[in-house]
């Protein structure tokens, strides 16, 4: 499975940042990408036994690398 690490939160708008924090995500969190939707649609990630859908752009920002 695809494992990623959250590298940074820079560049996110405050509401998204705040929500991700509330879900317990922080720099260093281990994120498992469960599913990518086509056409750069949302990404399902699994963190701390919870599954969350986020936008592809957000995912890319968080992991700071090439997620493909």
């Amino acid at each position, binding site marked *: 499975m695809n494992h990623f690490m959250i590298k940074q939160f820079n560049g996110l708008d405050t509401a998204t940042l705040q929500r991700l*924090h509330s879900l317990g995500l922080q720099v260093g969190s281990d994120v498992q990408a469960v599913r990518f939707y086509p056409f750069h649609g949302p990404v399902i990630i699994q963190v701390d036994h*919870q*599954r969350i859908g986020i936008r592809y752009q957000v995912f890319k920002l968080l992991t700071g690398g090439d997620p493909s």
Partner: protein
Amino acid sequence: MTTVALLGNPNTGKTTLFNELTDKYAYVGNWTGVTVEKKVGQIRHSHTEVIDLPGVYSLNPITKDESVVTNYLLGNSPDLILNVTNASQLKRNLLLSVEVLELGVPVIITLNMIDDLKRSGHYYNLDTLSSKLGCPVRTTNARNKEGLTELRADLVCEQSEIKPNSPLKLNYPMMVNQAIRQAADSLTKDYKIDAKFAHWIAIQYINHNKVVRKYATIHQLKPLLSQKAYYDAQKFEDQIFETRLSFIENTLTTATEQLQSTKHVALTSKIDKVVTHPILGLPIFVGIFYLMFKLSFDWIGTPLSGYLDGFLSGPVSTWANQFLTQVGALPMLRSLIVNGLIAGVGGVLVFIPQIFVLFACITILEDSGYMSRAALVTDRIMEMIGLNGKAFIPLIIGFGCNVTGIMAARTIEQPKERLITTLISPFMSCSARLPIYSLFVAALFPRHQALIVLSLYFLGIVVALLMAKVYHIIFQAEEHSVFIVELPQYHIPRLDIVWHGTWDKGKGFIKKAGTIIFAGTVLIWLLSNFGVSGYVTQIDQSFAANLGQILLPIFKPMGISTWQPISALLTGVLAKEVISSSMMVLFHTSNQGALIAMIGGSFTTLSAYALLVFILLYIPCFATIGTIKSETGSAKWAAYSVVSGLVISYTLAFLIFQIGSLLM
């Protein structure tokens, strides 16, 4: 009276717990943001009142419904807070608990959905959790009624018996602690604010809580306001978050116990493999909706409606007629009751089976957890029109009733996206529009009933999405849309929850039948039995006919050739259900079969479809207009929704009829 406030993250089973604990039930759903207003209930045989607050991730609100909680805590002091947490996601649930514990109000934390946790192969030592957090910790599983008796015993106690909690004190970095202490001290000294509350307000203010900052500005809390720039420049917010998270991680590590057996049932993952499939997800979504319509219109709803209609227009109507003749009632009164009320109100009541089946399907989707998946698979499409998948949920709820749909839009984070969702909601075909569709499809499209109705629903969605795109361009909404959606564990829908949810959504329909539809029917009966010369026997001379005939030239280009449907449309603004009962009165029929035959005679398939499209999109009902006004806070938008609905519906119906006539 003891007041207990129920507070917790979304998807923690809070509302289920509330329903189990109290006499009255609230509406339950398995997707984020079902409780959009706070609900109050009472624990059986006790003086304990329970308040169910909307689910929030933190006390710093992003959406409108989340601010309900913070405002509640600022303005009220409950005797006890029951913090409901999802046991398998304790880490993030405790982020909220910490904020609540800092308030110093007595708190009980319950680890709900404890079964899911056990299945994942670990457990928490409750004593360790309790001593670290400084409050009692219980375990429950509301869906199986596990641990509820114990919990109820904790809640049913007199105010004086509740043990006070001292506020949780975390080890924030020195600078933060100092800032909190200084602000709290001077709030207590100079503003006579209770020390605990002052401490909490100071933390929340420093932590950039929008509602608390507004509260401080309104109350002119200078010690906080003067330091605002300093707090923000020092990034205290981040430091507070980090301290809280490391406290929680530390607590959980100490409290975790491994269980022997790890029979992890990956039911959710298995279902999700199919349901959220990147390519199959969307067809499955469409398929589920098609199935829902098949159930409501072809398989269960319509046959049941037929029986009900047979009963109302047959025995009930005949019996009432005979009874009234026997007691010697005036012919006018008899006409009002038999041709007006029984035909009109009854004509709406016969749709109860269809509407309830539809509501049951929506409730099953909500309770099972599918709704958030629907938000996910539709997000890419919604992104194209500048909204996000979450806006899809209010729109789907709008299929039931536009009013609840618009209320559900409160969970959308961006204000502009919320406004757009509100404005396009009336285009979603609500259940009240069903009776009239059913009549027309039965009259003119007997072989393709479900398909034609489904096409109207899809047309509604398409118009809504196109308008959303237009608004998005006009409003120049921000590029960034907040789309973070939680995918909860699937639950097998529980029969009583489905029934409660269905009843909760459907009871309004029955209530309306007794009030506004009743009134509308009487009104239309009066209009159709009186004319300029008083009581008329010929309906062609009635006010209703006059009104319809005046407007007829306007409606001619969309294929309407008789005045009856036009007068019926006017009454539809009261409530959409009234259209069909008005038709019943205006065409002078007392049963569905006769009305269907009349409609079949006065419309062609094309003009009928054009009229249905017009009905789908024209002026929203009074209740919806009122909700748009209250949710947007402006009468301007309410008026706008009336005008835009009229323009769009007329244009489309006109085009369909004119282009269709050329082709046929």
